[in-house]
């Protein structure tokens, strides 16, 4: 009985420590917390965007879970960054807590899919971070939040 309990305890600790070990990039944007930036990177391209930079691009609205967001389409963002979408295979969205998710480029080029920097009724919520993806109708985890980087995969 004691051996079994000990084994369960060791296994639980091992699993939880494995869980806790890998959140490497806590707050990558802390250096610019007052003016957070989103980096578009890939190959030789690397361009940083602040909220005001994004606001200068054509704004689009998209809704997710009854909230309307304001942002820019991925197509417009890529165009502004000088990236040809036909050369892109996927885009990896990286969040400030280390979470990352790869999107197929065809999934992101629809007109209602945006990189949001605000809600229709004000700023993004605190847990949204400065920038977030909005994919209406898609599963929650595909709507990545707290974004700090979009890596272009060619």
């Amino acid at each position, binding site marked *: *009985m004691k051996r*079994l309990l000990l*084994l*369960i305890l060791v*296994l639980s600790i091992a*699993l*939880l420590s*494995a*869980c*806790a*070990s*890998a*959140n*490497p990039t806590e707050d990558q944007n802390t250096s610019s917390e007052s003016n957070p930036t989103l980096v578009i990177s890939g190959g030789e391209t690397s361009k940083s965007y602040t909220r005001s930079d994004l606001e200068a691009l054509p704004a689009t609205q998209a809704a997710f879970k009854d909230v309307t967001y304001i942002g820019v389409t991925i197509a417009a963002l890529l165009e502004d960054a000088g990236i040809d979408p036909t050369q892109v*295979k*996927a885009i*990896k969205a990286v*969040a400030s*807590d*280390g*979470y*990352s*998710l*790869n*999107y*197929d480029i065809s*999934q992101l080029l629809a007109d209602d899919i945006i990189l949001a920097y605000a809600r229709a009724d004000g700023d993004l919520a605190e847990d949204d971070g400065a920038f977030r993806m909005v994919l209406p109708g*898609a*599963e*929650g*985890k*595909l709507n990545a939040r707290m974004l700090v980087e979009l890596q272009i*995969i060619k």
Partner: protein
Amino acid sequence: MKLSTRELATLAVFGALWGLVEISLGALLKTLNIPLSGVVLAAIGLTIALVGRAFVPRRGSTLFIGVIATLLKLFSLGGVILGPMVGILTEALVAEIVLSMLGRPRRSGFVLAGALGVAWVLLQPFVTGPLLFGRTVFTVWLDLLDRGNQLLGLDPSAAIWIVAALLAIHLAIGAVVGWLSWDIARLLQVRLGRPVTSTNIL
């Protein structure tokens, strides 16, 4: 296969336990973006399901537990989330297939069922991603390599090693789950004073 009322009630209790773990701990782990959260949940869930199987060693009982847990997951705080629901059901199905193929309950069967059930966590996104969420196999593959990079520190270019290491970790954790489930079931049956017959695992 016809289950008695007592057997159905027993399976419902185990299914409800698995479901409650998914609803409570599952929501917490997903919110915290903890790596391997799927493995932790599968490990706990399969432990419950395998112990339940030992209590009702009848064909279909593990799947029944999974169905109950899946139904409970409908009431998750985050609403209806298809991925975890499919996950619970398929983990139970994988364990059920293994146990049904091996016939009489034995420790080796529990170990194999646990190993393959947890390993399914690794493979599931390749099925549910394209089928349910409009993702491509390529992007799911990239996610897998990124997870391997984060967890193991291996460069994504070492794809084979990442997959082999992740698969080995999943199988090993699942095997331990199966091994422990056997012991937990035996212990519980003794503690509860259940009659020891040829149909249960003692």
